[in-house]
């Protein structure tokens, strides 16, 4: 079971993701340079956080056309897992692997803080180790994390259980006060139709060891390991 962490120019959470896979989950992992044309041999691809291509034009807009993305899109279309964290989520939206877009935070600030997110659907490869309604404490660090989509897309995401995480307070209440960035319906993470692609703004790789303040991010990686072992 092998992981690949894609490195774009400007990625800066690549080492965190790599570290969690290698040293916390103890699974094989490689970096994949964005100029590669194949991701063959990897079970799961991670698009890490950062500022690929300096966020020029729009976040993720240029990275989406990196040579490796054709292979990542094929990997996803084959039903294999792809996890996009923060800038990775933005890239997945630009690549149309996930619907909607991520816009500048409503209060215009770059927000770097611990937040709570509620697991909205625990019957997915990314959340099966969690309980439905479980509250995870995970940090965010972004300037453009305000999830937007049109009404039809939101209705479809809700109807299909594809909103995996919403921002909430410590008790699990999802309301405007618990929404850090103005995301529609407090959306923090969504999956594609087949649930093999997950995009989320919070950073589970920064919350996978007690010494870092929380181990709640591990539930996502451990869910995925279970899914991969079963496959």
């Amino acid at each position: 079971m092998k992981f690949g962490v894609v490195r774009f120019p400007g990625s800066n959470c690549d080492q965190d993701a790599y570290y969690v896979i290698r040293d916390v989950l103890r699974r094989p992992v490689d970096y994949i340079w964005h100029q590669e044309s194949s991701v063959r041999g990897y079970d799961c691809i991670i698009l890490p956080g950062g500022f690929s291509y300096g966020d020029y034009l729009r976040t993720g807009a240029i990275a989406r056309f990196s040579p490796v993305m054709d292979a990542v899109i094929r990997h996803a279309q084959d039903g294999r897992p792809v996890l996009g964290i923060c800038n990775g989520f933005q890239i997945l939206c630009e690549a149309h692997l996930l619907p909607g877009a991520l816009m500048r935070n409503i209060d215009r600030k770059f927000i770097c803080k611990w937040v709570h997110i509620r697991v909205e659907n625990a019957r997915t490869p990314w959340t099966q180790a969690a309980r439905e309604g479980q509250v995870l404490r995970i940090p965010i660090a972004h300037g453009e994390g305000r999830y937007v989509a049109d009404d039809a897309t939101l209705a479809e995401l809700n109807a299909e259980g594809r909103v995996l995480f919403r921002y909430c307070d410590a008790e699990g209440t999802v309301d405007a006060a618990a929404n850090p960035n103005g995301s529609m319906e407090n959306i923090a993470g969504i999956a594609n139709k087949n649930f093999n692609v997950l995009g989320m703004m919070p950073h589970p790789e920064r919350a996978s060891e007690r010494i870092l303040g929380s181990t709640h991010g591990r539930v996502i990686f451990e869910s995925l390991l279970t899914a991969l072992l079963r496959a």
Partner: protein
Amino acid sequence: MPQVHVYVTLKPTLLDAQGRAVQDALHALGYPDVEDVRIGKFIVLSLRDESDVEQKVADMCNRLLANPVIEDYRFEVVK
């Protein structure tokens, strides 16, 4: 050599956080009559080839220059 001016703007229904900040700053500067500010992008393309300019630029806009989920675009060939 055709030159194309491309204007990319946020869809009117979406909140423009950057525009809001500039509006607040304009109010602070003593222009209380500014009711709304929308910020977009102005892109100048110089093309080598004169054929199919309209179609080519529309493709560029749909694929990269604008994100149709959140943005509208228009362009004009200026020379």
